[in-house]
């Protein structure tokens, strides 16, 4: 599985004074919710069918923390594709991840399934998974909330507004999953001990920047509206029903 280190903000996300980045001084870091599901799914597949699960992350040396979270959940190996501390664009990220996976394959590793989160909580480029899959020549489907393997294939379910779609993709394959796929477990103490001791492999990443260059972050224009207070407690009910009437709902 490929995961990404991202800040874990509360309801408000603080920016640095110059607005160029998130002020992470008082924030913890985590992998994104979709990726937690990717890790959980990989661990479950290994529990059910054997084999091993490798969690890979591209990022600064500190990103080893997120890999250890993956190992604490039950992954067997961790690979850090190490960058400088700058934010890489999706093309550069995908190129380096693809090269790292290809390197592991050349060394004899064989991956039946490469899992991604559908999009990261912070950048949400929604394309790294697809670009990596193309580099590796793997089929890929995004937005997956159901996954079942059977001899040589993986059956995938994607929910749409009109219902659901089922895909039957030959292995090896890549899949980008979404939260709701499973309920990620909370790592047990034993897992956290193991993660602390586990050795993490580091591969240096080569930076091939793509054409999307970030200039900084800002808050969207304020969306506060004038709020009409319809009342307090049960006494507000007639006014609420009147409003429902105005909406054509009564």
């Amino acid at each position: 599985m490929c995961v990404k280190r991202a800040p874990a903000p509360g309801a408000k996300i603080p920016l640095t004074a110059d607005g160029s980045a998130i002020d992470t001084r008082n924030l913890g870091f985590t992998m994104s919710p979709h990726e937690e599901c990717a890790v959980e799914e990989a661990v479950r597949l290994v529990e059910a069918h054997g084999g091993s699960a490798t969690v890979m992350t591209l990022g600064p040396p500190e990103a080893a923390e997120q890999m250890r979270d993956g190992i604490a959940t039950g992954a067997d190996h961790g690979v850090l594709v190490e960058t400088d501390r700058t934010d890489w664009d999706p093309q550069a990220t995908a190129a380096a991840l693809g090269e790292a996976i290809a390197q592991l394959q050349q060394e004899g590793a064989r991956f039946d399934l490469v899992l991604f989160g559908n999009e990261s909580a912070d950048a949400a480029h929604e394309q790294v998974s697809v670009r990596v899959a193309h580099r590796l020549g793997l089929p890929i489907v995004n937005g997956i909330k159901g996954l079942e393997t059977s001899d040589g294939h993986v059956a995938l379910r994607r929910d749409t507004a009109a219902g659901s779609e089922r895909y039957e993709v030959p292995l090896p394959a890549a899949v980008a999953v979404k939260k709701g796929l499973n309920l990620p477990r909370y790592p047990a103490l034993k897992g956290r001990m193991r993660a602390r001791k586990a050795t993490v492999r580091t591969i240096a990443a080569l930076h091939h920047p793509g054409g999307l260059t970030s200039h900084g972050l800002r808050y969207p224009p304020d969306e506060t509206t004038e709020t009409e207070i319809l009342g307090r407690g049960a006494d507000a009910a007639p006014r609420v029903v009147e409003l429902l009437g105005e909406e054509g709902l009564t």
Partner: protein
Amino acid sequence: MSDATHGSNGQSGASQTVCLVLVEADGDAVCEATRQALTVARELAGTVEAVVLAADEELARRLAPALAAEGVARVHAVTDPLLAEYGPEAFGAALAQLIRSVEPTGVVAPGTARGNEIMAHAAAVTELSLATGCVAIAVDGDAWSVTRQRWGGVLWEDATLAASVKLATLAPHAVAVQPTPGLEHATVSTFACDLDPTLARTQVAQRTPLGAGVTLSTAPVVVSGGRGVGSAEGFAVLEELAERLGGAVGCSRVATNNGWRPHADQVGQTGTRIAPNLYIACGISGATQHWVGCKDAQRILAINTDPEASLVQRADYAVIGDVQTVLRAVVDELDRARQPADAGAGG
């Protein structure tokens, strides 16, 4: 038969920049997100041309009048037998082939799940750069300057997209559709592509339509609950109200994390983003990750004990009070209001 054959036509010559827009159809209509993409694309190039991916040119012909009304002069019917059913790899490869043939200044697609997926594949095949989730796009010399959503829209990022062909998707509801004089007629040009049959491996194998009933993403009214609902049982009165209004029940992440509701009901950054006519938020504080999922509702009614809650501040209407007490009274009042006014006038 096509009105024009593909290739080096004068209209897409160097003097006239062309921006392509990927069309997502809603039956025989052009979906709202596509119309938003067309609105943005009209500012990016001299000519806007539409792209319809399908097994044959039938769909492109049916959509052509609606697209002409949006100012589209040419509709590229990109055809291949593999495009009869959706498959991300085949659709992406087909779009990539058209991009290489037309060499437009850029391509804008609706930032729906499918639009983003097709564009990611086209970008991977062509090795072009792609900016997803844009809220604004403007020409900046040979490049585009884009503003895109980060953190599900909690933050905006300003960026430059520099590429021979710029690829971008537009966040749904980010821009309002602007009226345009429109054209009388759009030419349909057929582009028969040549897809590798192995791409059938990611084609949809089976579709299961939703059972009867409203869904969170399409319901006109959503009654949504958070921590303030108190328990799984506490959602009963939300269900009652939703049923009476023909709506669906939604929830915050606290409700899913507590196991009160399934994740499918979650509204927000990691749940569903919705745009109902009315959103009734019960016992939800309005954290930004929740807000980005409901802010496109036409009207918001917040029910909360805390008048300072962020969602109360941002709502159009609010009732200050306990969820259970308020909703029980609303359901009773609604039932009373729906009774005939007096016995004599009934029937």
